[in-house]
């Protein structure tokens, strides 16, 4: 492989809290690693286990899901659902041999920009500790499901 490992971090975050915090982190010029790719969702309650698995299939090194603080969800309990789904997806990742540590749930309030920066730093460190996602490096991809087609 030879080339330097720059982890790819996927963050699925909710528009009301964590995205606002991430936006504020930008305005505050807080420094955090540029490895994170953000997907903004209306609510983390939209996060389905299959999205998390597909993210790893597509080669993400670590995935973070971040919603509002417990009790503060704009949709009341979307973040609680996400928390449970993330916990379940971790066991699925353990089962298949990739390891649940590559996935983590966070709760970051809209005004908590420093917490967002810390969370990204933590996941970047974790990605370095765990090393690259072997699925992203195995080329050509051996297997392909038709789940995308099914969901279309």
């Amino acid at each position, binding site marked *: 492989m030879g080339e330097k490992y720059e982890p790819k971090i996927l963050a699925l975050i909710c528009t009301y809290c964590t995205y606002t915090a991430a936006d504020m982190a930008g305005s505050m010029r807080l420094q955090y690693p540029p490895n994170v790719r953000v997907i903004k969702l209306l609510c983390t309650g939209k996060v389905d286990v299959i999205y998390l698995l597909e993210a790893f299939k597509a080669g993400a090194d670590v995935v973070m899901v971040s919603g509002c603080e417990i009790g503060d969800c704009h949709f009341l309990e979307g973040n609680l659902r996400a928390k449970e789904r993330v916990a379940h997806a971790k066991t699925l990742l353990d089962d298949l041999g990739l390891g649940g540590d590559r996935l983590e749930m966070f709760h970051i309030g809209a005004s908590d920009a420093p917490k967002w920066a810390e969370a990204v730093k933590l996941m970047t460190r974790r990605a370095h500790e765990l090393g690259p996602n072997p699925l992203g490096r195995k080329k050509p991809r051996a*297997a392909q499901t038709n789940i995308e087609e099914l969901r279309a």
Partner: protein
Amino acid sequence: MIVAERKPFDEIAAATSGFRKVLVAACGTCVAVCLTGGEKEAGILAAQLDMAATLGDREQVFSVGCVERQCDREFLEELGPQIAEADAVISMACGAGIQFLAEAYPDTPVLSGVNTTFIGVNEDVGVWTERCRSCRDCVLSITGGVCPIALCPKGMLNGPCGGADQGKCETDRERDCAWSVIYRRLENTGRLANLEEVIEARDHRDLLPGRQVHPAYQRRYSAHE
């Protein structure tokens, strides 16, 4: 509905490891409701198997198919084109559905992805409880709509036993005594007299697993009795 649980991942992975193209066949009815074998769960299993195969350097392809019910021939036909492409099918339906699928496509290995557990109800979000043992001689009209076979750990047909205490079962203090529930239900509906009826002991020879006796043999056996 029929309640099932997904088999442990390792067991499924081992069963499918020898096949190159595997179809994960979901069932859109009972097992979809108990979040075990619907289209979504099949998609999750396929994604898991796919990643495990790549990690293990196995050349395998997983696809997902879903029919309304696997216990109905009409619906099974829809899977034909996908099964024709597959080296093996892993069915996520209950045991009955899996067998019917295997029967409909006898040339393709059909594997089971779930452990079928019971006939039950959806009591609360994510909570399913067993309510019927399909005993073939239903006593619900006598017992106030409460099944003593499925709900009493001893399956007492004329209860309660001596262990009932304050409406709870002696095998488990958290558990209602089925016969106390029966009593209250009958009292509520003015049918306490039902309790005077003695339900006769069962001939459990009836309960042999899924026996299907040809009518002609039945006549011959009865001639010897």
